[in-house]
């Protein structure tokens, strides 16, 4: 465990804490003296990549963040948008990649716990979680162990804390074999007047620490896990594994929301990375006030914990509430009712400094009691001439270094882009080849196959909002707080495309999420991103990052989607190899009047099948090419304007109930889209698509519709006036998946291949750590 007092004398402390000599110099400069051990520990965590965004900040500014309905943009616990009728929605996404690689169950569980705290710390009731997940190939036992553990962790924590997991993603690709990606999104609803920010102001007001006791677990978690790349074995990190307690968090949710309803808090902040040092200093820094903290007032889990451990511990399920002394008793009573610990750990000052004491508040009469010391601990000394163990300018912790890291495209990129899979595919699959086995193979690919093995383990129905749960395009949640509004949510990432062109890859991720949302009849309202990248000290990685930001910014502008929050995860690498750049986006859309569930993805017998959008011979980065070992080429083009037109048309077709079934084209191309629609509708089809390339191309901005014959003309007419290309592919009916000259597969065979793929792999040979 990285504890300053335990580390070998050889390497200087700041190096052990992951700080550079320059960063230490900056601290000395800031303080005009050498920092104390505690001060150094606090700076090391607060200035870590994870907390300070020191490598990414210079780029993130290029994202569009504004729209009239945005109430809170990036920079707070969560983004907040106004959905009307006095109701607002808070949303945020976070990564927990490294902890999940060390201990999949607890890593994922504490990831869920952390993102949920971000949401209710804004005054919102968390009502939905989504979990975009990425692993190595599923035939590797280590991957099965991680997959099983992560899914169990999300299930175990999310279900018990009482927040439904309504959707997500699972992707399996060799790029993530050594470094899985576990991202979690949370969404909450609140009456606008309950919105609260993490602010500490008013000299003499008190910082009440609520929830779990503070332990040695997770000390230095942020700096060690997020700054140092994830290393094989990782023995050194194991002691900093965190165990989540969903029961404690559930009580915290109820207590905090009650606190805010009663108007008892001035500000609320969750304790996350850097624990108390971050929460206490950040809240006061935002108002230019100061903060005194007394480590002796913090309830400790273990005997003999020193202030360094107390201030940097990242123990889970803790919140900080800023309250006035008059309200203290009420706050403590409310916490007692919910059976959660609450202790006065800090006091707001006007010193402009962050000061940490160890036994001082009693002496100077700060209200509140010292918690009972853990067994074997001697009560901490108390004296009024007890000097601070840390005393720093309060702003300096939060305003870490800013790096303009060098950028350079990977040398191999041009070569990879030039190497298009098409020629090779034509060789392997000359015109007229029967593609039935190719289709069956794709349906059985874990990237395409039925994911219900995952989401059946998640409570995805709690709160009676889930109108469309996992298994379709976007998830749809009704807002019972409103007359008839509903939200649509989708998370998507396109790492393979990003690897071939990070700018286009980012655009394609935004387009797919927005397209999914449009397919449920919603209008896109906001986007959050989770940017999973390799080592920022590699110029290629920073180039990929910069390109990603530009691509995402363009796509968001074109679609009118403000970016209301995000998260950057660097150092996703193993054995020095960086993961494919993997921006994951979550898009939330609004349905103004939800009168009946959206049509869903199923075909209806007797319907005509219509494709909106244009298919081009685009196989670069496609599931089909990748399965056959071809990972090169260019990703599909991302035509932003035609995407915007498509989304508008599709949303109106759905809200006007002109289609019986609708599904967007993504992994595996239109052939897979049609197969999924057939499986869902339990009916076959006869269509004309074209050759293998046309069947499996992953051209963007395409949607397949199941349309009643008597509505066909209206649909085609609307497409025409909406300037969206539309073709009739054929008809739904029978028990055969048939495409002229391409494939012909019995529906039961397709259904089995798709449904059994993941369960049978997970049943085979039990997973081993």
């Amino acid at each position, binding site marked *: 465990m990285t504890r300053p007092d335990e580390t070998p004398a050889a390497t200087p402390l700041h190096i052990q804490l992951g700080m550079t000599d320059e960063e230490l110099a900056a601290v000395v400069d800031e303080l005009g003296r050498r920092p104390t051990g505690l001060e150094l520990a606090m700076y090391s965590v607060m200035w870590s990549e994870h907390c300070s965004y020191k490598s990414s900040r210079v780029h993130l500014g290029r994202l569009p963040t504004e729209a009239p309905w945005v109430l809170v943009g990036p920079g707070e616990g969560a983004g907040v948008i106004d959905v009307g009728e006095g109701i607002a929605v808070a949303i945020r996404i976070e990564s927990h990649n490294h902890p999940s690689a060390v201990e999949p169950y607890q890593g994922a569980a504490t990831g869920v716990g952390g993102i949920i705290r971000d949401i209710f710390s804004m005054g919102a009731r968390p009502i939905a979680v989504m979990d975009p997940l990425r692993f190595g190939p599923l035939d590797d036992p280590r991957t099965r162990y991680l997959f099983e553990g992560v899914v169990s962790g999300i*299930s*175990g924590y999310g*279900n*018990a804390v*009482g927040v439904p997991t309504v959707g997500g993603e699972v992707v399996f690709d060799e790029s993530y074999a050594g470094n899985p990606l576990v991202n979690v999104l949370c969404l909450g609803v609140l009456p606008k007047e309950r919105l609260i920010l993490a602010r500490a102001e008013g000299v003499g007001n008190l910082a009440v620490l609520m929830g779990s006791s503070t332990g040695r677990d997770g000390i230095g978690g942020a700096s060690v896990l997020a700054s140092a790349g994830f290393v094989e074995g990782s023995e050194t990190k194991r002691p900093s594994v965190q165990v989540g*307690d*969903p*029961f*404690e968090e*559930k*009580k915290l949710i*109820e207590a905090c929301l009650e606190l805010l309803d009663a108007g008892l808090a001035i500000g609320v902040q969750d304790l996350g990375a850097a624990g108390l040092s971050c929460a206490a200093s950040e809240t006061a820094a935002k108002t230019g006030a100061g903060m005194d903290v007394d480590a002796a007032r913090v309830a400790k889990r273990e005997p003999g914990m020193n202030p360094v451990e107390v201030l940097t511990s990242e123990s889970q399920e803790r919140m900080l509430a800023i309250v006035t002394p008059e309200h203290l008793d009420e706050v403590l009573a409310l916490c007692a*009712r*919910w*059976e959660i610990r609450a202790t006065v750990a800090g006091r707001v000052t006007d010193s402009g400094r962050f000061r940490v004491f160890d036994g001082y508040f009693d002496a100077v009469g700060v209200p509140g009691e010292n918690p009972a010391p853990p067994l074997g601990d001697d009560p901490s000394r108390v004296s009024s001439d007890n000097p601070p163990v840390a005393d720093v300018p309060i702003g300096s912790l939060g305003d870490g270094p800013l790096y303009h890291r060098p950028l350079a495209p990977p040398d191999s990129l041009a070569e990879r882009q030039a190497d298009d899979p098409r020629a090779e595919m034509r060789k392997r699959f000359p015109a007229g080849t029967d593609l039935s086995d190719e289709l069956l193979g794709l349906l059985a690919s874990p990237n395409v196959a039925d994911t219900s093995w995952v*989401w*059946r*383990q*998640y*409570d*995805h*129905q*709690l*709160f*009676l909002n*889930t*109108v469309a749960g996992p298994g379709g395009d976007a998830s749809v949640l*009704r807002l*019972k707080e409103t007359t008839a509004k509903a939200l649509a949510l989708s998370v998507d990432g396109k790492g393979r495309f990003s690897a071939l062109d990070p700018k286009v890859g980012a655009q394609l991720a935004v387009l797919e999420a927005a397209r999914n949302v449009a397919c449920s009849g919603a209008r896109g309202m906001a986007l959050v991103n989770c940017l999973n990248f390799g080592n920022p000290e590699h110029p290629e990685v920073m180039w990929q990052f910069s390109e990603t930001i530009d691509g995402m910014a363009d796509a968001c502008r074109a679609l009118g989607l403000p970016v209301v929050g995000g998260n950057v995860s660097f150092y996703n690498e193993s054995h020095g190899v960086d993961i494919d750049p993997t921006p994951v986006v979550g898009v939330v859309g609004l349905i103004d009047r*939800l009168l*009946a*569930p959206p049509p869903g993805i199923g075909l209806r017998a007797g319907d005509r099948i219509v494709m909106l959008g244009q298919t081009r011979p685009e196989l670069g980065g496609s599931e089909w090419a990748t399965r056959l070992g071809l990972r090169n080429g260019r990703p599909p083009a991302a035509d932003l304007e035609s995407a915007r037109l498509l989304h508008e048309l599709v949303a109106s077709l759905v809200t006007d109930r002109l289609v019986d079934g609708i599904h967007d084209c993504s992994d595996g191309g239109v052939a897979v889209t049609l197969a999924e629609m057939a499986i869902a509708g339990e009916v076959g089809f006869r269509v004309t698509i074209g050759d293998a390339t046309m069947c499996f191309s992953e051209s963007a901005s395409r949607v397949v519709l199941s349309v009643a014959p008597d509505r066909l003309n209206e649909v085609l007419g609307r497409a025409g006036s909406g300037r969206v290309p539309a073709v009739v592919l054929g008809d739904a009916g029978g028990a055969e998946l048939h495409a002229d000259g391409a494939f012909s597969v019995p529906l039961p065979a397709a259904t089995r291949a798709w449904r059994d793929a993941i369960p049978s792999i997970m049943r085979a040979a039990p997973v081993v750590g």
Partner: protein
Amino acid sequence: MSARIGVVQFPGTNCELDVQHAVEQLGGTAEILFHAERDLRGVDAVVVPGGFAHGDYLRTGAIARFSPVMGAVADLAAAGGPVVGICNGFQVLCEAGLLPGALQKNAGLKFLCETVELRVDSTASVLTGGARRGDVLRIPINHFEGNYVCSPETLAELCDEQRVILRYIGNPNGSLDDIAGIRNAAGNVVGLMPHPERASDLVLGSDDGIVLLRSLLDAATERAALVAS
């Protein structure tokens, strides 16, 4: 007059608002009873809803059954008042000894959230009074510990006295004799793993749970009349 249903809230309970919503959609009134309360404020019936009371730590329902409110719930049950435990509530009623048996981890050792088919096997209970024997209902389950077990003697008793009110068609969790829900001898205390409140609105996929919730409301109304007279 509309029946008043009390919905118990332990720390960790999470379905209380859903049950309240569903009851009110059906024209009943429902109020939350915090676990620390000792009296039931004169409600006509009690629902112990789903969730994770006390985190399900140690055993599901093990700690919850000692909450002050449970004394009053036991009194209501003894007096013939309707008491229904849904999911975690079923587990609590078993731990409290108001219903026989116990619920263990699912046979597959996985949490299961899915819609299952149930057959109504007894209508002699406050929850199935309005249903017909043999009716098949599509209602979601949402549990890790729904695997019903009891001694052979208890099972024989349950079967002989037709106290199994709901059975799974296609047992999802390994429950003994496909048991999804049982009642006490008098029929006023019921426990079931499936969530009727999650099947109370077509926009959510099924309204097969309404017949059960209605039966409960009717039983509560009867109880109210009885107490009044």
